């Protein structure tokens, strides 16, 4: 759009023709000839794009090599050359506040060296799906009954975690038969974000509205996006409203 001069040009017709020729050259070079106005109806939320939140508690994120993640606060002991303490890992997973399925965490955050023997063999990846039903209909039925007959949790998020909890405990039963070293190799990566850390999701936004996460705060953003994808604004994930407001703003 050109500036309108305060004083008209001497030969405005000629100027106009020159402008038009220029415009045609730009059109030939690929400049759009029809522009559709996008009313940014959510402009009012711009200030929310700048939102930030503080994690009032330390957050630990455990990531396995399939990109599943557990978020919690329990300690995880690590011994050089040997790896993580198995009991800690197990307790951490059992007591995790949130569990994310395989594939959630991008490979750059996954442990670099994937162990040959992974003690928590059953992750939520596709291949394991059959192990619950195991082709045995009655087994699956009783799972369903358990789901149906247990006291109903008071909100949806708890229904979800209830279902997840069922699955975890079953997996763990299987695992313990296969291997039980006290310490195991680096099958996990751990990220810690300390208490009172401020996270400003817009810091991780690229120019085109995509995300460029980095560091453990970036990982937290990735998990937030995954959480938002499932639960939207509901639930207790710290900072979720901020992330969702940004997602809404971006129209994703």
């Amino acid at each position, binding site marked *: 759009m050109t500036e309108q001069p305060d004083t008209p040009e001497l030969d405005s017709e000629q100027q106009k023709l020159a402008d038009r*020729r220029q415009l045609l050259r730009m*059109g030939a070079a690929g400049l759009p*000839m029809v522009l*559709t106005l996008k009313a940014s109806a959510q402009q009012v939320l711009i200030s929310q794009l700048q939102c930030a939140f503080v994690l009032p508690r330390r957050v630990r994120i455990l990531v396995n090599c399939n990109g599943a993640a557990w978020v919690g606060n329990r300690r995880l002991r690590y011994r050089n050359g040997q790896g993580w303490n198995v009991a800690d890992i197990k307790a951490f997973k059992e007591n995790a506040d949130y569990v994310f399925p395989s594939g959630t965490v991008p490979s750059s955050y996954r442990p670099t060296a994937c162990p040959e023997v992974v003690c928590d063999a059953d992750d939520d990846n596709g291949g394991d799906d059959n192990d619950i039903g195991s082709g045995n209909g009655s087994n699956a039925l009783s799972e369903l009954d358990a789901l149906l007959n247990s006291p109903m949790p008071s909100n949806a998020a708890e229904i979800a975690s209830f279902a997840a909890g069922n699955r975890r405990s079953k997996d763990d039963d299987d695992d313990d038969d296969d291997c039980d070293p006290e310490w195991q190799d680096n099958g996990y990566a751990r990220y810690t974000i300390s208490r009172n850390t401020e996270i400003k999701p817009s810091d991780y936004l690229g120019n085109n509205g995509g995300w460029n996460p980095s560091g453990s705060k970036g990982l937290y953003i990735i998990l937030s996006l995954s959480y938002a994808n499932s639960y939207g604004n509901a639930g207790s994930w710290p900072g979720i409203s901020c992330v969702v407001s940004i997602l809404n703003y971006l129209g994703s």
Partner: protein
Amino acid sequence: MPTAEQGVESAQAVIEWTADPESWMSEEFNDTHLVFFKPSAETHFLNFLSFGALELVGSSPATNVTLWHALLSKFALSEQDLPLSLVETVVQQLDEAGLISPVSLDAQNS
């Protein structure tokens, strides 16, 4: 209603474009045309060329080539100034915005 074969044929051969002048409102500001298109409720900015093309197609159906000639004479331009390819680009953009449509589709609709 055309058959699938006819449809393919017409797509490859000469599409005639049409537009309904009643379907839009416009305002000109310094050679820039603001166009409110009622069916989509969208607002478009058109320059002199794309708006000229829209007006011409709106006054009588035209193929890319007939439109090209009409634009050349309307704006007193040479073929060097305005190559056919640019007219084709403009037509495609107007079509994508829904401002113009192929005559065959229009016939279907009425």
